[in-house]
């Protein structure tokens, strides 16, 4: 099959790369940083949950662990406030993966529906722990070293770090999808028993996918903590975070590569807009938007659009084919 090479990512990277140069408005930049982090998390979430069909609603655990790793490490090592703290971002990812190992071992032994609820439970366990252990600062949270960069470019370093994380996870997710490992995850999604029958080591594959997906979410959490400069248990281990990234992936198109990216872009932007513009009605509008998308595009926006485009192309192709019935072409 020779197909036109898909190069959508080239203009996308250029667009994102140059974005800070023509947007000087710091509040848009702050929204952009959060949006990029959400895009990365949704993509990472999708790499496991979207591919394998095991919907996790406790990814806030990884985000929170990443955030607390950043906060604890930077304060305990008395790091100078500034760019040096970015070196802790991968550490946040590693800590999240380390936490994901036992959680995955325990939670992935059960059926999908039960898995959803166990992951929710883990989030509350971690939030509670953060509230009540003394090393986490309890309810007062942790104030990170105060980074006093000038306000007009404060967001920019965070933006590029978040963009770097996003590119990293998009590439990883694309590679995984095409790999044997990715096919095994997809096989589990389609029919786990059959995959097992075909010799896929389902338990190991699921655990590996779960742990990998935690890494990027942990890194994003670390960036979030540094960006905000202050963390609290309820904002670091946030149940809304779990639901948000899952919704973003679903909205864009579960299991697709571009779906979570698009879903996060749409949802985060619309949420920011609704919160500020309609403080009283925003939940209603947000819920209505979801319902409309879910009802009319149950496969997600990306799949919906793709189907439209292919259908149109097929119709045209069919028309051409019937006109030139004599010329038998090999359709790709």
């Amino acid at each position, binding site marked *: 099959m020779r197909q036109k090479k898909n190069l959508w990512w080239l203009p996308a990277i250029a667009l994102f790369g140059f974005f800070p140069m023509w947007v000087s408005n710091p509040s848009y930049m702050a929204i952009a940083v959060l949006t990029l982090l959400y895009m990365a998390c949704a993509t990472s979430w999708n790499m496991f949950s979207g591919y394998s069909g095991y919907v996790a609603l406790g990814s806030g655990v990884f985000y929170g662990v990443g955030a607390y790793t950043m906060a604890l490490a930077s304060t305990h090592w008395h790091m100078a406030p500034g760019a040096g703290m970015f070196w802790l971002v991968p550490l946040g990812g590693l800590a999240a993966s380390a936490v994901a190992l036992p959680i995955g071992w325990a939670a992935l032994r059960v059926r999908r529906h039960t898995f959803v609820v166990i992951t929710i439970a883990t989030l509350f366990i971690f939030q509670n722990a953060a509230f009540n252990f003394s090393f986490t600062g309890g*309810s007062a949270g942790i104030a990170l070293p105060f980074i*006093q960069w000038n306000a*007009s470019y404060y967001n920019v370093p965070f933006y590029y770090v978040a963009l770097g994380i996003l590119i990293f996870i998009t590439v990883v997710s694309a590679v995984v999808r095409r790999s044997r490992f990715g096919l095994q995850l997809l096989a589990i999604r389609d029919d786990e028993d059959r995959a097992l029958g075909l010799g896929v080591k389902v338990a190991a594959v699921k655990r590996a996918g779960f742990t990998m997906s935690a890494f990027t979410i942990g890194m994003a959490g670390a960036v979030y903590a540094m960006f*905000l*400069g202050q963390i609290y248990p309820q904002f670091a281990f946030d149940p809304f975070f779990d639901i948000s990234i899952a919704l973003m992936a679903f909205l864009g198109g579960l299991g697709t590569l571009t779906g979570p990216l698009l879903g996060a872009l749409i949802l985060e932007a619309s949420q920011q807009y609704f919160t500020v513009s309609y*403080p009283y009605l925003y*939940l209603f509008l947000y819920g209505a938007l979801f319902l409309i998308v879910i009802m009319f595009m149950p496969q997600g926006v990306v799949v919906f659009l793709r189907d439209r485009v292919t259908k149109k192309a097929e119709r045209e192709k069919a028309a051409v084919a019937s006109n030139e019935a004599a010329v038998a072409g090999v359709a790709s």
Partner: protein
Amino acid sequence: MATTSGASSSGLAKGAPINIGISLSLSGDFSADGIAFQQGYRLWAADVNRAGGLLGHKVVLTFVSDASKADQVQTNIQNLIAVKHVNLVFGPFSSLLTIPAAKAASRFGYSMIEGAGGAPSVFSAGLHNVFDVTLPIANALVPFATWISSLPKSQRPTTAAYVTSNDPFTQPQLPVAQKIMEKAGIKTVYNKVFPSEVTDFTPIADAVAAAKPQVVLLGSVDVPTVSSFMQAFEQSGFNPKAMIATAGPDQGAAFLKAVGKANADGIMVPNSWYGGSALPASRKMVAEYIKQYGGNAAGVNADIAEAYSVGQVAAQAIVATGGVDNAKIIKYLHSGVLMKSVEGNVKFNNAGQNFQSLTYTFQWQGTSGTKFVQINPTSDPKSAKPVYPKPAWGK
């Protein structure tokens, strides 16, 4: 970039208004307080404008909602300063949101005068631009504890319970009082923390009741917590000799509505202000509030006064520095100058705490829901006689 030029011009253009930006929680967990704060800020702005504005400039308030979320408050502050070009920013509600807000404002060189971020963590975050007009909360229960400890032996309670929400605002308050009371020989029979997100308080209240303390000190941030405890106490037939809650009973009409007027009798709360305050500015504010929103003096929420005081302190700084240059305002507020507010005197230390603020204990008395009076410190001639021991529930 031109975005921060508003901050550096101490001389405002003639006829240009002074624009003040405020991020408040109009939805989410803090929205009840957020909305009360909005009323307080508006009341202040209306008063100032009626008197001809500040330095001849009208005051305009710009509100944005942060939905009680920390990342949203950070975005909002940047939006207010860089996009809406406000001249000053005021604080959000709750210590939780104050730190991210103040950090964001600080990067623009903006001051943040606030009335609802009194947790010790706010003042230890290394911020130079935060000024809290309200009392530093750590010692808020001291007058109460001192009074209880000084009661004659025959009346003095022998046992006490300390129960608090897991919150940076309440948690630091109880140990201070506990130390004083234990020194006076009052035994601690219950001392536990409960999670801030809990909704069913009955088992906790039952456990407190079973310990039969004569005094209950409740670390609460809102009305529902206090009303739930009171209801559960009543249900289990438990009536302490004294009960004080760190916040909730100071919310005026909202508190009465939740607990019922009769049950409020005897309930105490520490604060620096109450609707019955004799300060002329406060009386004027309370009268205006009642004219606009109805009710009576006892029913005015302390949030209103806290927000109003923020405005007053900002106004004095603007007039004294001759404009809205935030660097000058920060310097002025750090200079140790004594200012006035409806909550009393204001004078900031290095960390931005108002160490002039006096702490009182207030108590609901009688069953009419109109008598909310100052009872501590007992040395203050304005303090009324406390209702002690607390009457039975609903009597």
